């Protein structure tokens, strides 16, 4: 299974779309938002707030990109080829989940490093560590949603569905524009999105607060929903592949 993870990671790292959209875009957007004064308010506050937003946004992009890859793999006959090797289907699914989870790390690290080195964000070692962990672990629900789409839909449709879902979650979740600027009704919705809960965990940490139980609960709820969805998608794909 390690061989499978290695192969999938090699493929991910050579994927131009992954590098551009998953790693480079959030870094560039972070620099643009914070240094062109678009974020408004206190510059230091913005540097921290947008750093978390963009790290979350990049991680979301990578997590969904991994799911889109599944649909392409199925169409390329790769899933069938894997079924003809001694690997079990559990190993294959687990391998893909691990690839997705590892694949979000460069994006998170790139944005946080930009924050520390370029925008001079200073936080305690504990804060940095907690944020990396929260941003990292929090991508699992999104990975599962992306995988579910990947298993259930065909290549191009899955790719588009994933990009659309990712952008919707990013925007409604307040990763691009803080929810404070939203009309009340939209803010109510935002508070129930997994993306907002996901980023809120790290926003709290970044500003020295304790993450709220509510955010953890909302994210855990979505984890269960998306996990069931991914499982349903995989079972369906298994029947037709």
């Amino acid at each position, binding site marked *: 299974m390690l*061989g*499978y993870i*290695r*192969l999938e990671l*090699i*493929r991910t790292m*050579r*994927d131009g779309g992954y590098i551009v959209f998953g790693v480079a875009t959030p870094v560039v957007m972070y620099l643009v938002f914070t240094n062109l004064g678009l974020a408004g308010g206190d510059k230091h506050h913005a540097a921290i707030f947008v750093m978390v937003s963009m790290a979350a946004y990049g991680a979301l992009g990578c997590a969904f990109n991994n799911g889109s890859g599944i649909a392409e*793999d199925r169409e*390329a*006959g*790769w899933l*069938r*080829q894997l*079924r*003809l*090797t*001694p*690997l*079990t289907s559990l190993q294959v699914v687990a391998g893909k989940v691990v690839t997705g989870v590892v694949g979000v790390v460069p994006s998170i690290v790139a944005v946080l490093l930009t924050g520390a080195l370029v925008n001079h964000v200073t936080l305690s070692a504990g804060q940095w560590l907690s944020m990396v962990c929260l941003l990292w672990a929090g991508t699992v629900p999104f990975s599962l949603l992306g995988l579910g789409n990947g298993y259930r839909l065909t290549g191009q449709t899955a790719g588009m569905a994933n990009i659309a879902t990712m952008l919707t979650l990013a925007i409604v979740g307040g990763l691009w524009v803080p929810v404070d600027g939203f009309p009340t009704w939209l803010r109510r919705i935002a508070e129930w999105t997994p993306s907002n809960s996901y980023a809120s965990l790290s926003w709290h940490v970044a500003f020295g607060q304790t993450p709220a139980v509510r955010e953890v609960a909302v994210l855990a709820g979505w984890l269960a929903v998306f996990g069931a969805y991914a499982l349903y998608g995989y079972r369906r794909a298994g029947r037709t592949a």
Partner: protein
Amino acid sequence: MSLESVTKTFGPVRAVDDLTLAIPRGQTVALLGPNGAGKSTTIGVLLGLVPPDSGRVSLFGAGPEQAVRRGRVGAMPQEGGLIPRVTVRELVSFVAGTYAAPPPVDQTLELARISDLAGRRVDKLSGGQGQRVRFAMALAGGPDLVVLDEPTAALDVEARREFWQSMRGLASRGTTILFSTHYLEEADEQADRVVVVDRGRVVADGSSAEIKRVVALTTVSVTAQGEVQWLATLPGVRHLEVTGDRVHLRSGDPDATVMALAEAGAVRDLEVTPADLEDAFMALTSKETV
């Protein structure tokens, strides 16, 4: 390996119909049949990709999934398996690594005649090269049974020739090989044994020489006008076909047929064409005969 009374239907279509087939170790067997004969479904059932409606599959004393998991089987499906952004060596090494005791990757690359492509990206290969990479994936783990579904279907003549050269290298090592094809000459030239499948059933099974002997019919053609159906009753004639004023008689005893034609005074522009596997195949899979 063996299939025992395997049946698989897709809606109203019986893709595989009570098919029984056993292959001893070390044999190279061609599964020959026209498109839609049930070859791919048979192979799918054999590999555990397609669950049969009824019947039993046994590979090395286990079910297909178990045999695959134990690394006894290597397979090359009809298409697919070439993923972008990896090199030939990375891909073949990965497949080899999923097996417990694979042969050295260099050896596999050499056998599949792709050593010179090792560093190339898989998605930038020609059809023939890609096919040999897929072949390499089937043998990368050093399996005891290699199953190839229409390995040469999309290849040009030259690529096919190269492919079969690789295959012969594999056969000479004692690996059991099952391949499907609708190219008659491939079955004829490459296999120890030819199993002809039509409409999901085995209609003939033997060496290509045996298949020809049993069913291949010599074609006796003459020019004739008017009522010609009586020609079908001549000795040896099994099948009659009329194109324009030519009558083609497929005969199991061409000597007797020609003698009878001569006695009847019907020898005009006589032409006798010996059987090839194509004829045998036609005879086996057409409804009118056998």
